[in-house]
């Protein structure tokens, strides 16, 4: 797969994101698949940040560690990001009269044949009497020229954005022209080689995981969102809030996470669909509510956006360190469902399912995401709107059904799947108490041991029922000469799986780089041409293990890949199956897996 990587770096607030977004949009429209990745620091302005775009005419889902071009807004980038360049890479900077002084840097530039290009942005803008902000267009134009793309493509973009402001548009167009001209002067022979575009990408959406999740939430019929800002969950709050005038959703920024969670549970009890989103520390505060909704059997949806902990940790970086938290937090024993998204497709598709499962099983559903997914930019096929349905399980709303209800139906323990009927305040029926104390079937508090046990067992039966209906993890197989093949239409277990020699197991945002890496192998380059399968867990608790056990039994080697230090999925797999995964690729530095990095880590294990 041909991959071109652009990295725009500079101080936060300097325009890194603007240039990144403009390039991304332009390239996608031209017919490329884009994967965008942002790095920034936990402060407002001035922190060194970057926006990286990995571009291909084929599907691309990860970032490379080394890039073809670094575009830097300030001199820090010149030094800090020099070693992000591939041999022959381009350093495009804007620092007048910059000279590398460190001998290592000079040696590196010479050895790696790095091409350093100085763009006199300030000078040009002065000449054009343009405001500083127009530097972004100028830079983009230079990059565009280096990419060998047409000026018109960029012109169309700015026309779309500034069409209604004539003067501004004119100035933008001037900057584009100037950018192309400048490139001809400064670096006429330097180019970044893109493959031929593929028109299939033109109609794709370009969105972050947070945007995708926001759309998924709205699509799912969620009508109330209770949030509290916390990176990397706040972008979702912003997305949902910004869409409220369109979606007419009720959006509340609560006074804290406990409030957000309680409001969500209150709204769910009343009968709408509601959710909340937070990160680890905020989620800790929500866990008492999580436990409450376990006993009241209130549907609930919690989005848990992971970042590295403990404590405040690395607020603007990524991790997969809160799986055990999602599974083990909240006092007492009660059923719950933990699922994890891996990309913009999941972000959309899984949201209706989260609400459906929450309502069908009257449980809390935790949807794990992470900073990487929340802020990465995906090229997404327009969503299929026919797939989702609203399933509300044993919710009674019709008049006859309501009339027939007895209070004691609410928590009737005699149900084999543990799920009893549910109906809503304000409907004309026998009333009950949604009860946080241990209770009898109509929600009366009880201290009777047998009654209590029956309720406990009733609730816990939901776990077995759920385990029975949840999909097994998805298997992606690399076959000789072929791309990654998903074995999951329809998702099935066991016997018909080709046995794989090497079984790679993972979850969450690691899926992107793993698939990119496996796809790049196509088994040609791999010694012994072993077959490799990637087993991706979307549903993490309750954990289905049949497929894993079957594959593990035949695999010569199992490799666990997780963005945490202890191998949390590995631990629960062992807890459930007794199988120890000896080979682990773990990561605890707050960064996602980069393409080459992961590729070589996997290769080492093969």
């Amino acid at each position, binding site marked *: 797969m041909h991959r071109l990587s652009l990295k725009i770096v500079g101080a936060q607030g300097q325009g890194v994101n603007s240039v990144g977004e403009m390039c991304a949009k332009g390239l996608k429209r031209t017919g490329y698949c884009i994967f965008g990745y942002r790095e920034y620091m936990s402060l407002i302005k001035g922190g060194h940040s970057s926006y990286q775009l990995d571009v291909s005419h084929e599907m691309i889902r990860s970032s490379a560690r080394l890039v073809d071009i670094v575009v830097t807004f300030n001199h820090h980038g010149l030094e800090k990001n020099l070693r992000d360049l591939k041999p022959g890479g381009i350093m495009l900077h804007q620092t007048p009269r910059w000279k590398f002084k460190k001998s290592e840097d000079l040696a590196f530039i010479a050895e790696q044949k790095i091409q350093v290009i100085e763009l006199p942005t300030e000078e040009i803008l002065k000449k054009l009497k343009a405001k500083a902000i127009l530097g972004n267009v100028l830079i983009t134009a230079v990059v565009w020229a280096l990419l060998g793309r047409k000026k018109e493509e960029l012109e169309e973009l700015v026309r779309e954005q500034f069409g209604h402001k004539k003067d501004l548009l004119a100035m933008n167009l001037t900057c584009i022209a100037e950018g192309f001209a400048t490139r001809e002067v400064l670096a006429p022979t330097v180019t970044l080689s893109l493959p031929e575009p593929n028109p299939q990408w033109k109609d794709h959406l370009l969105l972050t995981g947070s945007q995708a999740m926001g759309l998924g939430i709205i699509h799912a019929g969620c009508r109330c969102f209770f949030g509290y800002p916390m990176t990397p969950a706040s972008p979702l709050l912003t997305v949902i809030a910004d869409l409220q005038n369109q979606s007419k959703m009720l959006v509340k920024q609560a006074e804290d996470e406990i409030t957000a969670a309680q*409001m969500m549970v209150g709204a769910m*009890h*009343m009968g709408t669909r509601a959710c909340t989103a937070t990160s680890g520390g905020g989620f800790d505060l929500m866990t008492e*509510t999580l436990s409450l909704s376990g006993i009241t059997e209130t549907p609930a949806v919690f989005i848990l956006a992971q970042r590295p902990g403990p404590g405040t940790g690395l607020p603007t970086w990524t991790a997969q360190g809160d799986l055990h938290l999602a599974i083990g937090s909240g006092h007492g024993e009660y059923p719950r469902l933990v699922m994890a998204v891996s990309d913009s497709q999941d972000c959309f598709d899984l949201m209706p399912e989260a609400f459906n499962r929450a309502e069908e099983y009257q449980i809390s559903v935790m949807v794990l995401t992470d900073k990487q997914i929340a802020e990465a930019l995906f090229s997404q096929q327009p969503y299929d709107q026919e797939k989702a349905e609203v399933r509300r399980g044993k919710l009674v709303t019709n008049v006859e059904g309501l009339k027939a209800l007895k209070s004691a139906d609410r928590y009737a323990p005699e149900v084999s799947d543990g799920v009893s009927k549910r109906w809503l305040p304000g409907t*004309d029926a026998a009333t*009950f*108490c949604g009860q946080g104390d241990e*209770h009898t079937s109509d929600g*009366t508090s009880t201290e009777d041991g047998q009654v209590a046990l029956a309720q406990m067992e009733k609730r816990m039966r939901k776990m077995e029922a759920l385990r029975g209906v949840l999909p097994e993890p998805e298997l992606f197989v690399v076959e000789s000469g072929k791309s990654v093949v998903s074995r999951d239409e329809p998702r099935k277990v066991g016997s018909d799986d080709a046995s794989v020699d090497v079984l790679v197991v993972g979850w969450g945002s690691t899926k992107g780089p793993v698939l990119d890496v496996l796809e790049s192998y196509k088994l040609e380059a791999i010694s012994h041409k072993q077959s490799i399968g990637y087993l991706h867990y979307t549903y993490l608790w309750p954990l289905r293990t049949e497929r894993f056990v079957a594959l593990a039994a035949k695999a010569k080697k199992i490799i666990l890949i997780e963005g945490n230090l202890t191998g949390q999925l590995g631990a629960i797999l062992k807890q459930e199956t007794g199988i120890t995964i000896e080979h682990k690729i773990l990561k605890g530095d707050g960064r996602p897996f980069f393409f080459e990095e992961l590729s070589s880590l996997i290769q080492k294990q093969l």
Partner: protein
Amino acid sequence: MSIPLSTSGPKMQDYASPVPCTWCDGCGDYGIWGATQRALVGLGLHPWQVLMCYDVGCHGNGADKMSGYRFHGLHGRVIPLSAGAALANPRVPVIAFGGDGASFSEGVGHLVHAVRSNYQMTFVLHNNANYGLTTGQASALTAQGQKMNSSPNGIPEETLNSMDFVFSLQPTFVARAFSGNIPQLTEILKVAIKHRGFAFVDVLQACPTYNKFATHEMLLERCYDANKEGHDPADLAKARALATDTSARIATGILYQNEERPAFHERLVARQGMTTVPVDEVGIVDMSEYMKELV
């Protein structure tokens, strides 16, 4: 708040529960429990038309002692739970019951923000000035110099002036009542439940078991009906003064009411003109328009 009236009025027995009350003899919770039922019946509300939410505490043990849709949640969290419910369906009156421990310690932040948010709900404070259910520890409203469970030397903190506190938050409805005066409390609750926005009803509640400083007898003697003495609930300054100063006598009644400020859900720009409420709106939403923006 406009409450849909049902054709055949409910009766007291509609609110009856087979579960016997478990409060101590002389507990003020009986009075609040009785007045609540009377108020609901008085408003013509059937049990299925209301949601009552309970905090954890002695008062919360009332959650299964009457009919109606109810929810018994966590210690200190009844306000946000109720607010969430009320936002989801403002057509159903939501009444929250909470203790002084819950409301001025564990969950004081929720009280602060509920007042300033003016959610459409009623909050009934079971103010027995101690932590009843955990056997008599001091709350923020316990008087100075009282030996309490876990405070054998009395509390080292200042007692919180709850009314000055609540008035600092720009409430739209403040009432004070006494658990021993059921008729007055009933009337107050009727107005509170119909109030546009957040109705704060502070009920001074006798707790013969643990509260030896604000007893039924003491309260009986010192409480008076300020409305009967001519207090106009529209007079904010007077209301605040009456509410705050309880040194000589204790003013009860509807001390303050202002229905000009819209309730929270009415202030949401995005939902102006909506004729449905969020519980009506659950269904798959077409995303085509949203997707167009992202191509």
